[in-house]
């Protein structure tokens, strides 16, 4: 065998299918982006809820005081 060119699809290793904010698939991208994958990454919070990075950033920035996770209302902390 000389060369094996395989085909694979990638997927985010998240429990959920769609972003809780924009309701788009994680494997897709947030409404503002055009290219999925590295250009539109996911972000996990301390509560293990994942969102598109852009979506959650928008959310966090829009909160006046301390931001909460949109899903569980726990205080939002970016997971390291």
């Amino acid at each position, binding site marked *: *065998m000389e060369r*094996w*060119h*395989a085909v*694979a*699809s990638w997927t*985010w*290793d998240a429990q959920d299918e769609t972003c809780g904010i924009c309701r788009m698939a994680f494997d897709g991208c947030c409404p503002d982006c055009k290219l999925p*994958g590295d250009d539109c990454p996911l972000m996990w919070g301390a509560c293990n809820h994942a969102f598109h990075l852009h979506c959650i950033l928008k959310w966090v920035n829009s909160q006046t005081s301390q931001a909460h996770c949109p899903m569980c209302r726990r205080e939002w902390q970016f997971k390291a």
Partner: protein
Amino acid sequence: MDQSTTSSFCNLGILDSLSNDSICEILRSYNGFCAATQTLLAAVDDLSARRDFVAHVHSLCKHGLDSLVRDHFLRVLEETFERNGASRFWRHFEPYSNVTGLNKNDDLEIDEDEILSVLHSALEEIYLEKGYQEKCLLMLVHAFQSYKKQVSRDTRDLDAERNHLTTKYQWIVSSVLTATLPRNFRVILHWYFKRTLEELSTRMDEELQDHESQSKDGMDLDEKGKICNKVGEMDVDECYNDSRYSENNKLVNSIGKVVLHLRSLGFTSMAEDAYASAIFLLLKAKVYDLAGDDFRSSVLQSIQSWIQAVPLKFLHALLVYLGDSVSYESSSSGLKSPLASQPSSFCPGIDSPSEGLVRWKLRLEYFAYETLQDLRISKLFEIIVDYPESSPAIEDLKLCLEYTGQHSKLVDSFISSLRYRLLTAGASTNDILHQYVSTIKALRTIDPAGVFLEAVGEPIRDYLRGRRDTIKCIVTMLTDGTGGNSSASGNPGDSLLEELNRDEEIQEDVGIDDDFNTDDRQAWINAARWQPDPVEADPLKGSRNQRKVDILGMIVGIIGSKDQLVHEYRTMLAEKLLNKSDYDIDSEIRTLELLKIHFGESSLQKCEIMLNDLLGSKRTNTNIKATISQPSQTSGENAISMDTISATIISSNFWPPIQDEPVNLPESVDQLLTEYATRFHETKTPRKLQWKKSLGTVKLELQFDDRIMQFTVAPVHASIIMQFQDQKSWTSKNLAAAIGIPVDALSRRIHFWISKGIISESAGVDTSDHVYTIMESMAETSKNGAGSSGIQELLGGDEEEERSVSSVENQLLKEMTVYEKFIMGMLTNFGSMALDRIHNTLKMFCIADPPYDKSLQQLQSFLSGLVSEEKLELRDGMYFLKK
């Protein structure tokens, strides 16, 4: 005598007053007059009876019987003419009485010169006869005149008298001749003119050639300018070639004489018809000769110059010779066409005789245009087949049509030839599309507004819509710049991709134009250039501005919407990309960019992501490889290193649905892939890979005892053959279990290797079980008869209908099955429904997930699928439930 009785009946009083003497005198002189008339007319060139004749006329006139004299004389004249002139004249032509049709000339083998001379001599003779009779007539007139001078001073209406008599005589002559006209005379005349004109034209052609060769270089340009006023320069020409021209002149003069004679015999219109038709015939022959089947050169110019050189010169000479073109013209000036007043083609310096000539010129040119146009239209199909080469012919046709305005003829004839020759089951879709594109290009030249294109394109579009592979062909044409399909029609792909490129340029140009348009002057010019739509335009189809001819637009118009096209493109792109093992996608990127320009960015978003995936995979691949410092130790005894593995990683949401079948890859490969996935997970946390194991390509080198073979195959094939590394022979059930695919799928796949002569198939113990054995040496292979030669490279998947991306139809079918229940329910309720009603109902009620968004055609094809499955029935356009 009737005449005399009636006239005397009116004047009964006069009769009574007549004395016996005078009666006797009248009788005597009447008899004498009759006899004199007889002798006078019967004799040829014998005017001895003149004196008697005059005396008798005088005495009869004295009794007021001048009308009697006149009538009798004319009647005798008529009889004599009929007897001597006409019948003798016709007798000349009797030998040719069997010449009845123009085309039979060739068979009959007539001595041409003989006819010529016969016609000449016959005309000469009858002319003489007529001249003599006219002399006699004049004698009568003189007799009247001299009597009137004696009797009265009344000389007022003498000229009127003469005119009256001559006209009457003219009438007699022509009526006698026409009444006795044999059928063949017309033919003979026609034939005569044809022949003499041919002679003349060959001479003039020679002259023309000489003339052109005389003025080899510098004149060429002038020639074109001069053509229009060549008629005016005829005197100059005369000086050029005196000797030959005089010869021509002689010929023209002889023709002119014939025409003159014929005219004097009252055959004016017949003669005109004859030479006109002869000229037209000649012109037609010339056009056919020049135009022929060669579409590579423009012939209009040469035809025009020929018209100027030959027939017009002839006509000019003829009209000058006849000298009465003025009367000819005045008789028809009421019918003057508006074109005739266009001063463009003639110098103003030419005076009235050329008026008739102008009319002739217009007539001839129109005829030439029409002939050429008919010729070209009848061959339009062929012309368009070799379009880029045949553009001169198209240009010609365009000019002709501008002149004749018979566009509808073109449309009709072309559509019928299309129907007959192109839109048949035998023609491949590619060819039809190719022809369609050529048609668009060609007709765009003829008619920039695209009105006729609309009409012509309609049948093609309708037909193409009925073909299933149309979209695929179009997309292939659009994308396959290299002309991947080696069909006989050349490379239709080229043209469309070029069109894409060109389109891009045009759009840039338009951008520049727009800048200029801000200039007021330019806007004014544009406005001044506006022309109304041709009358044939269908007002429903919008005005000229919206009807910009756009090849791609028209092609997309076939499909119906660009979405469908984009969809098909995506499917084809996906397949192409999945079968790529290197990451070279430059050409695809270029095509996509072009398509984006035309169809808009947003609709091709997904395709862009697909291409981006490829680029991303290339990067990832190198990254992953870089993390491995040295060849992996985990790769079993076959020593497959990570280097051999590469992967295309796709964003599955943006690709068309991909058919993935589970397959067990060989252990070693599987391990490598797992490792690859892990590394991916490491580099791209928190993303992970999901292998589509049946997709991709594998390049294999098979080593046998006596040969080495290379293949590029699908993974399934690879895993099949790799199973044979450890075990020489497998039963189909075991092999299927090992690879993890159903037995029937296996037997389909393994057929590839069997056909290559690498695996042999034999019946096993169980009838449903087959035994596959690998062939180790050539000898075994050749025993099996399936010889295969050395190194082959073949994409295993190609020959089966297997495709990695499910086809558009399958997807459609899958989507439509959702609606099957709806349709069934509807038909149960309503009994029967027409197609569009089903369509509308679905649109109305299926708004929930998934919304009904299919086109009428798609629904129709789905329904016809249901009909063929015998679930539905179609009668008179209504769908029923099958009972």
